[in-house]
């Protein structure tokens, strides 16, 4: 067979319908999407936490979002089709157009792309998830995967920081996470971001993390957030005694193609969409400071 016929078009997305959505904050929305074509749903054999997708608003363009729900696993006695969830902030042309769409409308999805969190390697270990702002979206799949099978892991701390109370995402589901045995949710807002009646912490994430006084021994830290937050968080982690291979994060460079071709997400030799986005702090230290 000629090569040309054998190569599928990597850029043509699957059609997915907006089944439901939830407004997390005034500018952050979580979408629940279902495949329009059941056959394509069947071909989408789940994903691993940490992977991402390219979401198309036809007429506006594509945006990269993390796959934010617990990984869907094909299962004989489960008739339901796979659902994709993503959480995005309205910041540009595509996300503004996406925000303007309503239930039942059709968008495009291609993926999953990239590597993933090594969740199975964390079995038996204590975990801390640290998410700053919309960075929580990249952690949610792994958090839900861990919470769904909590008995396989040690204690779990979820530390969620936001600029202000109104910017905090996943507030509806956090009480449910907190109820799981061995899961502790700590919420913090930047100084000045608190409101009357706020019962969480007030302080920058790295400081609040240090204040928790968690023993680094055998613990895995999974952190995601803006570059400036990660910069100060790594300083704190080093100070408290974590080694770089205990810390996992995601690189969030600008991506377009998702398959390592378009060239914009390179950090030195590392193509974030193809070789990442999940990296350990140790791996990050080997890369040029170009992210």
């Amino acid at each position, binding site marked *: 067979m000629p090569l040309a016929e054998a190569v599928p078009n990597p850029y043509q997305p699957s059609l997915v319908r907006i089944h439901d959505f939830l407004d997390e904050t005034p500018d952050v929305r979580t979408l629940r999407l279902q495949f329009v074509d059941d056959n394509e749903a069947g071909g989408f054999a789940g994903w691993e936490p940490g992977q991402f997708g390219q979401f198309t608003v036809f007429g506006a363009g594509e945006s990269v979002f993390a796959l934010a729900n617990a990984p869907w696993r094909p299962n004989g006695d489960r008739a339901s089709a796979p659902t994709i969830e993503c959480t995005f902030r309205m910041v540009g042309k595509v996300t503004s157009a996406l925000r303007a769409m309503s239930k039942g409308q059709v968008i495009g999805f291609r993926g999953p792309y990239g590597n993933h969190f090594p969740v199975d390697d964390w079995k038996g270990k204590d975990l801390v998830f640290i998410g700053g702002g919309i960075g929580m979206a990249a952690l949610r799949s792994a958090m839900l995967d861990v919470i769904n099978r909590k008995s396989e892991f040690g204690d779990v701390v979820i530390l969620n920081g936001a600029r202000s109370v109104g910017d905090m995402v996943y507030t509806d589901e956090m009480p449910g996470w907190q109820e799981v045995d061995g899961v502790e949710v700590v919420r913090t807002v930047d100084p000045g971001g608190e409101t009357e009646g706020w019962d969480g912490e007030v302080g920058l994430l790295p400081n609040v993390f240090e204040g928790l006084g968690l023993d680094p021994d055998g613990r895995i830290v999974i952190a995601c957030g803006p570059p400036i937050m990660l910069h100060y968080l790594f300083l704190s982690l080093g100070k408290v005694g974590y080694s770089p291979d205990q810390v996992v994060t995601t690189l969030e460079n600008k991506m377009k193609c998702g398959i390592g071709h378009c060239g*914009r997400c390179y950090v030195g030799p590392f193509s974030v969409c193809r070789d990442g986005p999940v990296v350990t702090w140790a791996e990050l230290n080997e890369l040029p400071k170009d992210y």
Partner: protein
Amino acid sequence: MESSWKLTDTQLRKWLSGLLDGNSVVAPVEEDGVLLFRPIASEDQAVVKPSGKTRWSPKEFLFPRSEALYRYNFKGGTVQLEDPPVPEEHQVLFGVRSCDASGLVRLDEIFLSGTKDRLYAARRENTTVVSAACAAADVECFCTAVGYSPVGEEGSDVQLVPLGEDWMLRVLTDKGRDLVSDAGDGWTAATAKDGKRIAELEKSVAGQIERSPVNREWSQVLEEGFEHGAWDRLAQHCLGCSVCAYVCPSCSCFDMNHEANAWCGEQCRSWDACTFPLFTHHASGHNPRETKQERYRQRVLHKFAFREEDEDPFRCVGCGRCVSLCPAGLDIVNTVSAAVEAIREEGADAAR
């Protein structure tokens, strides 16, 4: 499997004329005094023995400046998707310099590795490269300084070697054999003596290139000196116009955007460059390469450092177009050697 023939200029032109039957032939053509690769309708349009190289590399015939990746129509509350047809016509890229033929292989390493690019793969499958070894170096050439050769075979299916007034035609691959199934009228088999002239030609053209070589171990030095202050000085004159990337035979970065109206649209790919500020600009406003120093450094290091293995070729093939066409007179070879010198003299961490 190699077969080689000796042809006169007239015989070569006759063969070229025959190629037009059943192929789209792309060859150097003079347009308003500028040499460019263009599809030709008859062999006399082609400049078979040009005195310089084409202004642009032939990469756009595999990786067009702009193309639709897929199309869509809005219909009844949903969307109908449509793949663009893959190009089916066979094309011959004729008279491609050795550096440009290697440039195509550097593109293959991007578009055909991992997830393959459908449109690129189709064009590549349907393309045969007839390269022409260089009879002389142009003033901007530096292929030998970066590990390539004026008579290099990489990426060539058929290679033409200029032997004075005559040509040697060498079939190098199966695809080349499909193009040269039989010797043409009056062709004679090339002799061992003709073969030896390739090495002589290489030596003579290399002798015209007055650039000191870029050493392979410099990749490591450049990576170690990533944050060296020399980049401020080296990039000072860069205008950020990105002509270097556009004319480069191996630059492959692209942008993707949607063009649409109320009824239909398409996802378009177009050439892009790491020297543009928007290339890495996040929607959040964060930009890992905010300054032109960082962007220029990225372009230079992506060519000369960040190689997976030490033996991997540089991604710069030494055609010299970026040097001759840079409006600010920047010279990538001088930049590399100046950066390496500064990093070695002042230490990798010398502050910005």
